[in-house]
C-alpha cells in the first residue's frame, strides 16, 4: 500500500509575538514547524504502516528551507520525501497549490490513500485537501478523526459541529485529518540524525511536472487580492493598576455589577 501525505511548513504561531509598538507580528527568529494537523495526518499514515505495512511518501511545496519539514517527517518514520520547489511555484493560491501537488502526485502514481491535515495554522483555509481531491478526481472525506481500511475501501468518522458522520469511500481516496485523530509520535533521536546525514529528499521543479503554461504559481491562481488591510483595532481595554489581590477584587465587583457572574 502506498500512502501520500501532504505537509506544509509554517511559522510556529505559538512562538509568534506582537511588536508592542506597531501591533504587527514579529516573524524574526520564529521557528518553522510542520503544520500541526499535517502531523496528525502523517501519524495516521504511520499507524497504518505499523499495523498493515505501507510505503509512506511525504510531499510539500515550498521554499528550499521546507527541506527541514520533510526531514522531520523522515525522522518520524516516513519512507520517502519529495520537495516541490521552484520560483515558478511562488505566489500560488490554494488552487494553484492543489494543482501543483496534484501533478506531482500523478507523477508519483500508484497511491491508495492521500492524507492531508485539515488546515494550516498560517492560512486557515482548509481548501488545499479538497481541491487536490477534485483535481485528481477521487473521493474525499474531510474533518476525519478516525479511519479504518477494509478491502479496497476506507471508512472514516467525520467530525461536524453538532455530531459526526461515518462515511465509506472506495480507494484511492483523500482524507483530511483533524487534531482529535491522534497524538503524533516524536521523531526518534537516531531517526533525526539519519534523516539529515544519510537520507535523501527528492527535489522536483516545474520542469519535472510537465505543467501546462499558466497553471502554476501566481499565474495559475484565480484568487485576486484586491486589497489587504488590518481589521480595525479594538478599542483599548481598561487597565487596572493595582496589586494582584486588589485588582482581582475590582474585576470581580465589576463582573458582578454587570451580572456576568453571580455573588
Amino acid at each position, binding site marked *: 500500500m502506498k500512502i501520500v501525505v501532504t505537509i506544509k511548513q509554517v511559522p510556529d504561531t505559538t512562538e509568534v509575538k506582537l511588536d508592542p509598538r506597531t501591533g504587527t507580528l514579529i516573524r524574526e527568529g520564529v*521557528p518553522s514547524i510542520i503544520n500541526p494537523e499535517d502531523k496528525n495526518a502523517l501519524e495516521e499514515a504511520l499507524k497504518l504502516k505499523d499495523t498493515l505495512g505501507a510505503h509512506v511518501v511525504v510531499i510539500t511545496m515550498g521554499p528550499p528551507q521546507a527541506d*527541514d519539514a520533510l*526531514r*522531520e517527517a523522515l*525522522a518520524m518514520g516516513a519512507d520517502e520525501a519529495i520537495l516541490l520547489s521552484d520560483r515558478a511555484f511562488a505566489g500560488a493560491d490554494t488552487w494553484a497549490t492543489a494543482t501543483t501537488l496534484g501533478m506531482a502526485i500523478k507523477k508519483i502514481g500508484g497511491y491508495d490513500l492521500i492524507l492531508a491535515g485539515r488546515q494550516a495554522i498560517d492560512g486557515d483555509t482548509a481548501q488545499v485537501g479538497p481541491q487536490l481531491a477534485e483535481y485528481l478526481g477521487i473521493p474525499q472525506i474531510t474533518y476525519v478523526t478516525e479511519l479504518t481500511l477494509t478491502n479496497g475501501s476506507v471508512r472514516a468518522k467525520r467530525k461536524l459541529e453538532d455530531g459526526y458522520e461515518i462515511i465509506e469511500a472506495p480507494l484511492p481516496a483523500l482524507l483530511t485529518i483533524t487534531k482529535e485523530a491522534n497524538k503524533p509520535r*516524536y*521523531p*526518534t*533521536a*537516531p*531517526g*533525526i*540524525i*539519519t*534523516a*539529515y*546525514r544519510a537520507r535523501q529528499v527528492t527535489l522536483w521543479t516545474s520542469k519535472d511536472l510537465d505543467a501546462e503554461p499558466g497553471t502554476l504559481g501566481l499565474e495559475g491562481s484565480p484568487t485576486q487580492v484586491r486589497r489587504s488591510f488590518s481589521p480595525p483595532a479594538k478599542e483599548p481595554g481598561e487597565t487596572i493598576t493595582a*496589586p*494582584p489581590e486588589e485588582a482581582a477584587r475590582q474585576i470581580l465587583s465589576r463582573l458582578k455589577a454587570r451580572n456576568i457572574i453571580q455573588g
Partner: protein
Amino acid sequence: MDFTFPKEYELLRRMIREFAQNEVAPIAEEVDVEEKVPMDVIRKAGKLGLMGVPFPQEYGGAGAGEIGYCILMEELNKVCASTATVIGAHTGIGAMAIYLDGTPEQKEKYLTPLARGEKIAAFALTEPNAGSDAAAIQTRAVRDGDNFILNGTKIWITNGDIADIITVFAVTDPALGARGGVTAFIVENTFPGFRVGTKETKMGIRGSSTAEIIFEDCVVPKENVLGQFGAGFLTALKTLDVGRISLGAGCLGGAQAALEAAIDFAKNRYQFGQPIAQKQAIQWMIADMATEIEALRSLVYRTAWMMDSGHMDREFSTYAAMCKVFGSEVLDRCVDKCVQIHGGMGYMKKYPVERMYRDARITRIFEGTNEIQRLVIATNLFRKVGVRIR
C-alpha cells in the same frame, strides 16, 4: 569559525525539549517527594533512542555524539535533575566505559541493549575509603580458572539498585595499585554473589536512586574484563573525563531554568508599586546569571566538539574538568540568586525553585569533587612547563 548548531542538532533539541516538557516536567515534583525513579519516563526515553544518544547507531545508539548528548542533558536538567541523573549515570559513565574501552563483542552484547534502553547501566568506583582518593579502592578480584572472584563493597552508586549491567573497578594486584593493579569488569546483576545493600536518602536528586552494592565471592567470567587487564584506573579516568562535559551541560540546563524562573518571577512580583524587575538589585543578579550561563554554554559545547572531532588529549581532560568546576559553580550561583529573587516563596516547597536549589548542590561534589577538578586543571597546566604536581 562557526558557532551555529547543524540542523540535526536543532531538531534533536526541539524533540528533546518537547519530550521534557510533556513527559518529564509533569513528574518532576512527584519523583522528588516520593524518592521514586521515573521508570516510565526512562522506558519512553529508551524507545525514542534517548538512552544511547552519544553512541554509534551500529551499537543501538542515536549516533549524535557528545554534542547531541550534551543537548539531552541540558534540556532534561531544565525540568528534572533526577531524571537527568538516572540517564546520566546510565549513558554518561556506565555505558560510556563500555563504549570507550569495550571489545566489539562486549559492545555488541552489552552496549547495544544499554543504548536502546532495554537494560540499565551503572558505574561503580567509589568505596567507603576511596572517594576522591579513587586509587585507594579495596574491592578485590582474584583469578579462578576462567573467572574472576570479586569481593568488596561499593557505595553511593547511582542506579546501583536498578542497574542490570555495572562497570566495576577492582584491585587485581595490590602491589601495583592504581598503576597497573586495578582492572575494570562488566558485571551483570544476575551474577552469583552480587547483591544490593542499603539505599541512601538524599538532600536532592531524590528521584534518582543511590545504593550500596556488595560483591561476595561474585563470579565474573574472564571475557568481562573491560579494557586491558590492570589498566582499569585509566578506563575510570577516561570515562570520568567524558562524563564531566555532560555534567557541565546538565548544570547549564539547570542554570538556564533558574534564570528563566527568576526573570518570570521578577516580571510578575510587585513590591513598592512596580514589578521587582524595575529594581537594580534584581537586574544585576539577572545580568550576572545570564553572562555566566553564556560563558558556560561556550565552554561546554566547545569541549563536546573537541571530543566529537577526536581531540581526546590532555588538553581535552583539562577542558572537561573546567566544564565540571565552572558548570557546577555557575549553577550554584544561579539557583542561589534565583531563590533570593523569589524571597520567601523560593524557600517554600510549593515552588520548583526550592527543589532546584537542593538538586544543584550535589554537582559540586559528585563525579570528582571540584577540589579534585582544580587539581586536575592545575596539574595539567604545570606539566606543560615541566613541573610535576604530586
